[in-house]
């Protein structure tokens, strides 16, 4: 045990000390900060800029549509309470708009002077409403902020609402009724329902499932390759023989898999912890920089049993592939050979990841069922399935058992190949020679 610990310690410390590890580990939190804070911050910045927006509404409809649009650009508060009004004022864009009614014939000449105004920064932009707008087909906006999707959408919504209101009114319905009829804001809130009841939003579940699959896939590739390189280094520098005069090959292999696994866990825990932290503090950070709350979705509620299953899939999946990568490393004599020889192992992984999307789309299909039971794809596919639908406990347990058995078999096989291969130099063994190695040791 002492020697296993010495091997683990070396693997861990030497890897954690590298610049690459520090960089990638710190990159996680920065990345989380970026995807959580920056969009919120930017949208706030966009809104703050928009507050001083000055938009000229050129109304050539002759129907007073321009005034209605201007009105719609000033959004209403949710209710009349001070808090709601304040929230509205701070949250939403207030466009200082000025309406000018013109005759269609003078439109071209006026537009030229408006372009000059925008260029000279006297205006942010101008909106042209004409007969096409009244027909319900188009309106034109030109301005410095024309590439801002949010603001375009806001203007577009205002035009639509104004037009709708005007049409309802002209159908003989009074203004107040028209106003209330045209105020339609529907948001689709999708919620997942399982045997246990409601379980967070469907979108969150899918994102969560995909994140787990992707994280596992990435860590297997990343740390599997790290193990391969480590074994190859020990073999090519011939340090393996010195080490093996002190510890058994099995101890060396186990120490390597555990040590590198611990490095991976350290990294992922840092990422998960920083991700959760940013998620929790997001509101505080955003309001500190003057941004309001973003539309939010709840994390899917994860039961302890599911969490344990996920962690087991993660650990077993990693170990399974780590053993295979180690065996490949012991078989070959150079990095080029390693790239070639690790192809079959990589294929198993890629084969799993390409089925993630189909399984997410239809988590109850035969494909999903089969893929989540094959030991080599189960660690990636089963978590996806579990997050997308309710998987019977028996199936999860069966899948886990399958992965565990495959794990034992692969470790057994890898240890034998490792023991012999580490001291074999020269050409790469054929399958038949490999079989002999396995029998021999």
């Amino acid at each position, binding site marked *: 045990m*002492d*020697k296993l610990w*010495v*091997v683990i310690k*070396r693997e861990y410390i*030497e890897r954690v000390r590298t610049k690459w590890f520090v960089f990638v580990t710190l990159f996680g939190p920065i990345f989380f900060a970026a995807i959580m804070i920056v969009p919120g911050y930017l949208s706030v910045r966009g809104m703050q800029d928009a507050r001083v927006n000055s938009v000229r509404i050129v109304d050539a409809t002759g129907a007073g549509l321009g005034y209605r649009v201007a009105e719609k650009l000033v959004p209403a508060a949710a209710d009349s309470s001070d808090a709601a009004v304040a929230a509205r004022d701070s949250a939403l864009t207030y466009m200082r708009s000025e309406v000018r009614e013109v005759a269609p014939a003078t439109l071209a000449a006026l537009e030229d002077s408006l372009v000059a105004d925008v260029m000279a920064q006297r205006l942010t932009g101008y909106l042209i409403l004409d007969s096409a707008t009244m027909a319900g087909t188009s309106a034109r906006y030109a301005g410095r902020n024309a590439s801002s999707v949010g603001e375009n959408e806001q203007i577009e919504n205002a035009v639509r609402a104004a037009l709708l209101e005007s049409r309802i009114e002209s159908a003989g319905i009074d203004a107040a009724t028209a106003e209330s009829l045209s105020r339609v804001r529907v948001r689709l809130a999708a919620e997942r329902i399982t045997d246990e009841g409601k379980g967070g939003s469907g979108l969150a579940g899918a994102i969560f499932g995909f994140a787990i699959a992707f994280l596992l896939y990435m860590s297997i590739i990343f740390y599997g390759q790290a193990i391969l390189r480590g074994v190859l*280094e*020990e073999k*090519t*520098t*011939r*340090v*393996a*023989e*010195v*080490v*093996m*005069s*002190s*510890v*058994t090959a099995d101890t060396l292999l186990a120490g390597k898999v555990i040590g590198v696994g611990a490095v991976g866990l350290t990294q992922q825990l840092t990422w998960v912890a920083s991700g959760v932290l940013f998620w929790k503090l997001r509101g505080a950070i955003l309001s500190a920089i003057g941004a309001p709350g973003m539309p939010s979705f709840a994390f899917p509620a994860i039961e302890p049993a599911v969490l344990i299953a996920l962690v087991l899939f993660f650990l077993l999946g990693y170990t399974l592939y780590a053993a295979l990568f180690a065996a490949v490393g012991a078989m070959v004599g150079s990095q080029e050979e390693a790239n070639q020889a690790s192809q079959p192992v990589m294929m198993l992984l890629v084969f799993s990841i390409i089925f993630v999307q189909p399984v997410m789309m239809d988590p109850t299909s035969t494909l999903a069922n089969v893929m989540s039971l094959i030991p080599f794809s189960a660690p990636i596919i089963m978590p996806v399935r579990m997050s997308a639908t309710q998987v019977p406990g028996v199936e999860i347990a069966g899948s886990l058992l399958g992965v565990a058995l495959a794990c034992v078999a692969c470790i057994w096989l890898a240890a034998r190949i490792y023991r012999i291969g580490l*001291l074999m130099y020269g050409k790469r063994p054929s399958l038949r020679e490999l079989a*002999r190695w396995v029998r021999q*040791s």
Partner: protein
Amino acid sequence: MTEAALEIRGVSKSYAEHVAVSDFSLSVPRGTVYGLLGPNGAGKTTTIRMILDIIAPDSGSISILGRPHGDRGVLDSVGYLPEERGLYKKMSVRDVLRFLAELKGVDRRTANARIDEWLSRMGLRTDAKDWGKAKVDELSRGMQQKVQFIGTLLHDPSLVILDEPFSGLDPINAQALKDTVVELRRRGKTVIFSTHVMDSAERLCDSVCIIAGGRKVLDGKLADVRAENAGHTVALALDGDPDTAISSVLRDRALVARMDDHGRNFEIELAAGADAQELLHRIVAAGARIRRFEQVQPSLHQIFLQRVGATGVEEGMSGHG
């Protein structure tokens, strides 16, 4: 202290294509320097790897310092310098050495103290420069060899096994290695080293074992081995190059089994049952002017050639050193 430092009994190991070691037995007394001699491919490295439990023998048993070599902790008292040397290139010298020591069960503090001591002793740590802080691949090849050697001895092993220790060493490191072997022996340690360089074996070893084709050819104390093989070797020096008549005498298989020809000097191994006097008589009769004719103790090199046979000797052989 009665049991041997190393006891190998009837060990065999075969691979698919060939038999590497066949029914090999060996007993190495404590406190001796023991040479394992043989041509390349004789099974020396396989034997050493079996001693260190790196590969398992097909049959036979091995015990170290009186205990089966597979027992827990037994290998902690063995130091090993493999023929193919290597260290973790990206680690600092100190970290590599500490790792190797800890693998042998030395605690951290003891390891650190010994590392400092050894680095100073090997000239890798001076007031001006401490190479212990450098990464292994920043060191010259000679320095790396020193570090590897320190790694072999850091845990103060009772039995030190060196596989082809002199190959690739520069003269200074070779001398340092010889000095250390002598020092180890003085401190009562047992040193086993394999080599195909007879010269270094002859100067360092108390006892030798010659192995060829996976089998033991002979073993014993160096003095005994030489005494047993004495009386069959004649040193001959001629005044002038040998003419046809003399050459035909020297090629007579009834008299001369083998001859090491240096032009005018010959180391001659007599054929079985041949008499040195008859050889002298025939040479004189052939008209040779003789400067030296002496029955000598054979060199280890000569014994090796004699017992292993020229067929067992590969190109890698070097002799007179």
